């Protein structure tokens, strides 16, 4: 899924649910906040999306533009409510105190990042053995490094599906 695809889904879901505000959850929320996210992090055709003000209407979105729907056939991607996608998901990016960057608010006419994240970052790898500092740097450079490490770490695990968590701390 590309950024333009996500924006298309947001417009469609907004119309179906009659709600100008939506919440995107899961790996595609990374795409909403970081248009330069590498494709390897965005493997799914699904965007987990629900109306912010009328959350009970998520079922309408699933029904109209969900998995295997005519919309999915036509455009190659779909919207559904699945709480962040599969539990066997791709590598994830997490923020300060381990909070994942995995939900973002959007309006039908524009995606609004929850946090512009300027400044200095540390890139750390989180594992059972604890947290390891990989590198620190300004936001853009640190993000590129984080993405490249996620891709590198994820490539070996894409079907073994052991989630890899990389923590980006401000």
């Amino acid at each position, binding site marked *: 899924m590309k950024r333009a695809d996500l924006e298309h889904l947001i417009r469609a879901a907004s119309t179906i649910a009659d709600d100008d505000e939506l919440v995107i959850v899961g790996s595609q929320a990374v795409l909403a906040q970081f248009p330069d996210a590498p*494709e*390897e992090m965005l*493997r*799914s*055709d*699904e965007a987990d999306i629900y109306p912010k003000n009328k*959350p009970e209407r998520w*079922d309408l979105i*699933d*029904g109209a533009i*969900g*998995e*295997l*729907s*005519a919309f*999915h*056939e*036509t455009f*190659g991607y*779909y919207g*559904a*409510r*699945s*709480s*962040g*996608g*599969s*539990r*066997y998901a791709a590598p994830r990016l997490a923020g300060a105190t381990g909070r994942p960057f995995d939900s973002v608010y959007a309006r039908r006419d524009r995606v609004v990042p929850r946090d512009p994240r300027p400044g200095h970052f540390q890139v750390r790898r989180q594992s059972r053995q604890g947290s390891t500092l990989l590198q620190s740097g300004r936001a853009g450079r640190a993000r590129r490094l984080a993405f490249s490490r996620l891709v590198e770490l994820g490539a070996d695990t*894409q*079907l073994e*599906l052991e989630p890899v968590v990389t923590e980006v701390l401000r």
Partner: protein
Amino acid sequence: MQDPDALRDLAERRSCALHRAVAELLPHRPDLLARARQRVDTWLEDAGSHPYATAWKELLSLELLDLCEALGSSGEPMVTLRQASPFAGALDSRTRWRILKTSELSGR
């Protein structure tokens, strides 16, 4: 707001049920399999954008019975592969809605 685990469970059950319905159609609808194979071949031309294309290619080359069994599997590899399925559009809208309505959130 619904429980995230319950939503994820529902999404996986729905996905599984949709693909089981496709599997039931395949013995009678060879055109669906041909279309899926054609779609995967198209994906393979741009494999970088379709990381599951190779896995789907292998899956679609299985014997029909094995393929049908795999499509409805609740195992980890299929849960992942179904996130990018070549069977989009295989079910008519009425069938899809019926399956979605029969796979409701528990306690709803």
